[in-house]
């Protein structure tokens, strides 16, 4: 939600920089996503070189100005400009609230932008002349480096805090953390209850605890005044006409959604709040035809639905340029009912968003009157009769205040007076040992909620840290046993993969899995997420196919599989390449060694040519097995408590992976016995960024190498981040690596 700093100041005197205010909001629980100055970078400081009369108009002038890059002519109507002054220039494309600056020809003279008055920049109310800037503003620099009268805060309001969805709501927050009071302006009109010319019948009171109307006749529908449009636009709403704009304005102002009906379109002067009937439909304000269900609440006249209550108005009864008499509606609807309706129709409006989160029941009539007052001011007209409709009395919730419990939970030692002070600033009232919860706070139910209010305003940085005593936990868990299995496989040279738990329709065809017993996702947004996997094998084979550049591909996965209403954790191993069969057998042997399983518990499978082709695997041999993990870990014969899990001995230097294919090269060196392979690997990495991976794959000594000599063989994986690497480029880098290793380590390349 977007709020304007200037608008907050309507309610509370805050004197904080944007940065400070932002930090305060963040630290008290409202996340600030961004802060923006109201005019953008295209409004710059310019210097006037010359002022000439306009040849075609006495009251206009032509200012020749320098914008930091070039000298241009601007047509201007103000009388206060003189050569030498520094002034704000809105260049072509600059956004000033409701206006985007465009190149214009004014009485035959081309104007490349606009010099701005104070009000046009939102800096103040003045429109008598161009804003003259301070002498030390640098020509050509964006103006918002020097002045920024208003800022837009984009806030992320959590779903429990519907009361924050307005400027008044955020002003209350600001008041609480600044230790100030919110001052709400006094209303100027006070119509009495009852005596409205329009009758109201509320049929579903449980879903509409209050519904009030005010009839205003003789309004002049027109565009809103500039200041009103500006505020709406800055807060992210589109101006429509003065009546609709005022209802929106009051919603952003105090958080109460309002609606205006064209009274001329309501038959028999009666509004009914009722359930929609089967097969009823409504054309919404945005032109969409909505099919209604009996669960949905509508505002209707005696013939037809006029609006989807609390969600969206109807097109037919909306306010248009021809409207002269209106009915203004302010109501409270049941959050759950609104949420169900909005969800069922896939509609989300500013109104439904607020009703879903709960509005202030005590604020309904004040909002109605505020809007009416603005309408009389801006659109004219007069109120007919009094306030129509009906509503329950507003409930005041009280809670016990338990200072000891609050202090003990927070670990603080605040006095009762300090607690009360914070609560009062947030709008709570105190009555002996209990507090009266503000009517706008629907999130306060238990004393822990009060603890949060006190904690967040007092500041969590004030909470003293309380250490936990070191303690030993049971180390033997299925988790730990699983990790020991992973260690065993990785020590055999296998790589752990983590594949998605999903299968697409296509995956089931490739793997020839019958879909009947698969668990199906009800609301997948991507076709990849249609089913849950019932086996790790399709994922493992996908990995084998994807990593064609590796030989061998030796991988394992421990992951959950699903079928029917069952879920279990499996272990899967797949290996491809020349030595595939040997590696898979070895993995099985090792598992049998450490557990009570027998060979028949781990049957090794292989793949036919047809199967390999379906998975797009271009390797001649793939061997694999899959088994439930529970039997394995339950029968482990190792002393799980005594074994330590592997963890990195040295820091891992991560290199990003390119989306482009890698080129591989194998190189082998003969070096002195004292040389560590890690040193050679580091040396190779330093050579070039296109080296993604250096892997030792063979190491041996032999008399034929010479005394005190050893042989190391490495795989080099080379890739470019932005494009496919050419063979020639790869050869160049590899040649460089060879040369460097030879000179550094006295190594000899083995051909």
């Amino acid at each position: 939600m977007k709020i304007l700093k200037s608008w907050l100041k309507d309610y509370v005197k805050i004197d904080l920089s944007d940065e400070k205010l932002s930090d305060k909001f963040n630290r008290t629980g409202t996340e600030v996503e961004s802060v923006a100055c109201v005019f953008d970078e295209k409004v710059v400081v310019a210097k006037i070189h010359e002022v000439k009369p306009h040849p075609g108009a006495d009251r206009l002038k032509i200012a020749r100005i320098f914008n930091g890059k070039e000298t241009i002519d601007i047509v201007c109507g103000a009388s206060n400009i003189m050569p030498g002054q520094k002034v704000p220039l809105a260049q072509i494309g600059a956004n000033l609230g409701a206006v985007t600056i465009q190149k214009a020809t004014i009485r035959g003279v081309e104007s490349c932008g606009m010099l701005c008055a104070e009000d046009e920049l939102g800096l103040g109310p003045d429109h008598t002349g161009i804003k003259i800037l301070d002498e030390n503003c640098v020509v050509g620099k964006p103006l918002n480096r020097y002045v920024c009268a208003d800022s837009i805060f984009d806030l992320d309001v959590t779903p429990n805090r519907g009361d924050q969805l307005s400027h008044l709501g955020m002003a209350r927050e600001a008041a609480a953390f600044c230790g100030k009071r919110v001052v709400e302006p006094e209303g100027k009109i006070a119509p009495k209850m009852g005596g409205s010319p329009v009758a109201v019948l509320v049929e579903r009171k449980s879903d509409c605890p209050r519904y009030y109307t005010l009839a205003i006749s003789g309004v002049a529908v027109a565009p809103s005044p500039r200041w009103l449009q500006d505020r709406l636009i800055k807060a992210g709403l589109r101006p429509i006409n003065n009546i609709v704009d005022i209802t929106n304005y009051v919603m952003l102002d105090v958080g109460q959604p309002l609606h205006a009906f064209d009274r001329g379109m309501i038959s028999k002067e009666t509004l009914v709040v009722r359930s929609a009937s089967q097969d009823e439909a409504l054309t919404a304000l945005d032109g969409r035809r909505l099919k209604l269900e009996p669960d949905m609440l509508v505002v209707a006249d005696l013939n037809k639905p006029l609006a989807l209550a609390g969600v969206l108005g109807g097109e037919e009864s909306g306010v248009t340029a021809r409207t002269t008499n209106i009915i203004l509606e302010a109501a409270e609807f049941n959050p759950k009912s609104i949420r169900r309706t909005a969800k069922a129709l896939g509609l989300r409006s500013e109104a439904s968003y607020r009703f879903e989160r709960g509005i202030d029941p005590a604020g309904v009539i004040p909002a109605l009157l505020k809007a009416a007052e603005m309408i009389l001011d801006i659109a004219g007209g007069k109120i007919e009769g009094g306030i129509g409709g009906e509503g329950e009395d507003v409930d005041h919730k009280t809670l016990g205040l338990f200072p000891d419990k609050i202090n003990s939970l927070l670990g603080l030692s605040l006095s009762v007076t300090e607690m009360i002070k914070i609560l009062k600033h947030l709008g709570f009232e105190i009555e002996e040992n209990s507090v009266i919860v503000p009517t706008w706070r629907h999130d306060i139910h238990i004393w822990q909620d009060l603890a949060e209010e006190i904690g967040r305003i007092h500041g969590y940085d004030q909470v003293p840290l309380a250490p936990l005593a070191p303690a030993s936990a049971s180390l033997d868990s299925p988790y730990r046993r699983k990790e020991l299995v992973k260690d065993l496989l990785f020590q055999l040279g296998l790589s752990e993969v983590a594949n998605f738990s999903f299968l697409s329709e296509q995956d089931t065809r490739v793997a020839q899995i019958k879909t009947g017993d698969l668990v199906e996702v009800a609301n997948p947004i991507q076709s990849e997420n249609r089913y849950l996997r019932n086996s790790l094998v399709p994922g493992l084979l996908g990995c084998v196919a994807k990593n064609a550049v590796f030989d061998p591909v030796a991988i394992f996965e421990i992951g959950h599989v699903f079928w029917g209403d069952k879920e279990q954790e499996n272990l899967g191993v797949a290996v491809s390449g020349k030595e595939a069969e040997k590696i898979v057998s070895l993995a099985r042997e090792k598992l049998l060694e450490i557990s009570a399983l027998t060979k028949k518990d781990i049957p090794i499978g292989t793949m036919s040519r047809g199967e390999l082709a379906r998975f797009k695997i271009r390797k001649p041999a793939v061997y694999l097995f899959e088994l439930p993990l529970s039997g394995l870990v339950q029968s482990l014969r190792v002393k799980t408590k005594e074994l330590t899990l592997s963890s990195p001995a040295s820091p891992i230097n991560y290199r990003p992976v390119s989306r482009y294919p890698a080129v591989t090269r194998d190189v082998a060196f003969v070096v002195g016995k004292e040389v560590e392979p890690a040193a050679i690997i580091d040396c190779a990495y330093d050579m070039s960024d296109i080296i993604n991976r250096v892997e030792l794959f063979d190491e041996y000594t032999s008399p034929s190498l010479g005394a005190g000599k050893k042989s190391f063989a490495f795989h080099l994986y080379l890739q470019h981040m932005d494009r496919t690497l050419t063979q020639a480029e790869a050869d160049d880098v590899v040649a460089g690596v060879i040369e460097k290793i030879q000179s550094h380590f006295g190594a000899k390349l083995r051909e």
Partner: protein
Amino acid sequence: MIQIGSLHPETIFLRQMIAIFNDLGFSVFESPEADSEWYNFDAVNVPKDHPSRDVQDTFWLKDGRVLRTHTSNGQVRYGEMHKPPLKIVIPGRCYRNEATDARHENTFTQLEGLYIDKDVRVGHLFWTIRHFLKKMYGDSIEVRFRPHHYPFVEPGMDIDIKYQGQWLEVLGSGMVHPKVMDNMRVDSGQYSGFAFGLGVTRLVMLKYGIGDIRQFNSGDLRFLRQFHP
């Protein structure tokens, strides 16, 4: 052996994380990935027809279950079966039904922590998290606690660390909500506790400077084979 193997970066990272919590007496508990609406939502105070459900885009299964949106689904499962003190961490895979890009993935790993005992305070939570972050990222790490709403806790907080000059949210936490304790059949008048959820995938990305979250489940050995203990 012919080559050096590798472990998934989340595996390596979880081991380090869990070892730190083991030393504070937390044991490991695991919960199912496909779970009932009750354990994933209602039991942890995320009611039906409440906007707090929208915060987590959910994969619903045709049989009415959900793919867990957090490993908090293990909280009440464990609480029902054990008497306080409860002191566990719950590692595991979680799911969110959202479009994926370099920053968002529908599958990610979380480590949930839960500690319920007599006289557990906010300060215990803050100390524990600070202790953990210092062990993982070094003593100079800057940590900030910020109020935030999570239905399962009251009060609730987000925890940020300073990373390259910017505050970055790394975990959600708070004091266990009495309703959640009721569902565990733990007396909230007698006990209090804290819970936290750590985004493991996100922390691994930070640790190694991994720019694209989609690498984790890509099966690309050029990525995976860089991580060996």
